[in-house]
């Protein structure tokens, strides 16, 4: 099932993915509310990517007491190049986990269980926000196009986690 991955080995820490993600969702550049991030240690230069693993993880959905995180069908058409392109082709059908704002009570259960730290309370809306694969054309991948880097990938796992709901 499709989800975005940042390669910790290839990422250069430019944060273009965060910028593009935030602009797409917020209408302005605001990386503090990006749905993914590259954690860079300036002292050592070490990098760790943080992305939502969607239905391959689904811990947020499991933890939500309000059924506010739902599974939606999605067709992902990546703009640009990505490492998995040859394997997966132009269009990938699968599922994505989406927060329903109207059902979210901001209880915080999902914030606590997320293993990659990519679901948070939105500072303006007091509901959870997370990666939704940009409705099918992930901006993060589109803006990681240095041919020597291509650190943002679309991974497609064969199976979902048991807890993920259809």
């Amino acid at each position, binding site marked *: 099932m499709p989800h975005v991955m940042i390669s910790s080995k290839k990422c*250069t*820490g*430019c*944060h*273009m993915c965060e*910028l*593009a993600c*935030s*602009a*797409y969702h*917020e*209408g*302005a*550049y*605001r*990386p*503090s*509310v990006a749905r993914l991030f590259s954690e*860079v240690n*300036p*002292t*050592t*230069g070490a990098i760790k990517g943080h992305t939502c693993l969607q239905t391959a993880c689904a811990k947020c959905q499991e933890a939500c007491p309000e059924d506010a995180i739902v599974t939606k069908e999605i067709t992902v058409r990546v*703009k*640009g190049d990505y490492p998995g392109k040859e394997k997966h082709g132009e269009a990938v059908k699968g599922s994505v986990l989406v927060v329903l704002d109207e059902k979210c009570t901001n209880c915080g259960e999902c914030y606590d269980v997320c293993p990659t730290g990519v679901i948070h309370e939105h*500072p303006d809306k007091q509901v959870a926000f997370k990666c939704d694969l940009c409705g099918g054309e992930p*901006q993060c991948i*589109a*803006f*990681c*196009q*240095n*041919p*020597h*880097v291509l650190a943002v990938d679309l991974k497609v796992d064969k199976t979902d986690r048991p807890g993920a709901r259809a």
Partner: protein
Amino acid sequence: MDFYKGRVLRIDLSAGTSTVEPLNMEWAQRYLGGKGLLLRYLWEEVPTSVDPWAAENPVILMSGPTAGTGVFLGGRLVVGCKSPRTGILTDSYVGGSFAPEMKFAGYDAIIVTGESPKPVVVTVKDDLVSFVPAEDKYWGMRTSEIEEAMRRDFDPEAKTLSIGPAGENEIAFACLSTDLHHKAGRGGHGALVGRKKLKAISIRGTGSVSVGDAKEFLDYAYRLQTEHVLNEENLAMHEEGTPGGAQLYSDAGAIPTRNFSSGTFADMENINSDALLAIRTKVRACYQCPVACRQWHEAGGVSCEGPEYETIALCGSNCGVSDIEALMRFNLACNEWGVDTISLGNVVALAMDLTEKGVEDFGLRFGETDSYVKAPALTAKREGVGAELALGARALAAKYGHPELGFEVKSLELPGFDPRGSFGMSLAYATSDRGGCHMRAFPAGDELESGTRPPDSLEGKAQYNMDLQNAGAAKWSAGLCDFWQVDVEQLCLLCERIWGRSVSEDDFLQLGERVWNLGRLFNLREGVEADDLPTLMRAEEGAFADGLSAGKFIGDQAFAAALQEYYALRGWDENGVPSEAKLVELGVDVRL
């Protein structure tokens, strides 16, 4: 408001207070941002003829309108003041992530005035500004230490701009550091920040920068990326970085070697790009840059970003050093102690030269690395030989009776391209607005890299230098990094979005010329010395004995004539004073 935040943070260190004021949008429409807007603010904020060490001399941090947006390579910060080293303007550029963070915090610029009674750190989290006593805690820290401390004590995502011990001790070539290895290196601002007892500004911003219709902008940016950014020319910086030029410039007889006594380093293969690629561990990027030119290396237990070309030239070949581990140790020490590698490498080589000539024994010799690697720390602390090195090239050379061995222009130590191997650089150094600097006009690129202009002739070089300065000044006013070889057409389209009006190529180049003339007026106001070049770099007696540029010299008369040609092309008089007609033509809104 799009691109700009429309807000300036003013920090008064004497009073320990801060205020927010509107960005002067009339100036922004005239000078864009970055370099241009910085100079306009300097004109206003620096009291005429002020002692550059005085509390009234401000330090100004200016972003470009592109910082904090998806405009590639648009996150540069420029730091400016009246330099306590040169007495004229200094504008120093740095990448990293400080400028974008400043925009997200809500500010286009930060103006620092006054002098703190005791060492202080200023933290800025969006609207919250705090003055944190630094005396017992942070003063004395090296770069990595203060940055880690800010992440621990202030905010885990804090971006910090700091001086090292060198700045604290008011070393004239102390730098401001950010993201550890990124430096606003040159010009003397580090010493002024130290005099102000400001250890660091640490900033965290959670706000946004608008660009109009964000989805439309993302489409535009995607096209820009594909068609104009990720091409072979720009990506060369990713593949090799700046060290790519080291062997070429040495072979061409243009790399500083043993205190500028030669243009070719026989042992360049030990510290050239190939040598570095063999020990490269990773490549990193500045904020909002997909090119990613920052090369990390590891040797002998030292892991460090760099050395960049200038460090290879000034601290390597210029010091006769071919030991790559020693060079990396020197580089890392400069980064940690907060010293500009160009100036220090230049002065260390001078000290080596004076030692070898038997003038004075500084304990430093060309190629000897034991004492060499200790130089950055000693200089930062003004200890031992460091106290002498701290004088800088001009004063040190004069003190020991050999002014001709100090290679500087207007007291700024010369960087990594010898004009005897690249004649165009003679005018570049002489006419640069902040002193001897290769980053205002760079004719060496065409003369030696692409080979489209002859390196041993001054013909057409006055025009060429002027064109490069004008185009550059406009580009740096947008906040863009040099390593995006972007054409004027694309810059115009970008400017149209920023300014919200039609911008022709002539408009854009005129912006650059306007900014350059504004800088010239500032320098004339504050008392700039005559444009010149070290004697040995223009006179016949200074011609190299070896290498591809052997025997070549510019000639005093030819140099003087080229300078006059440059002034005439610029519409300046024989003393380099802009004419009233030129200032009116360009729309410069200040006068002497």
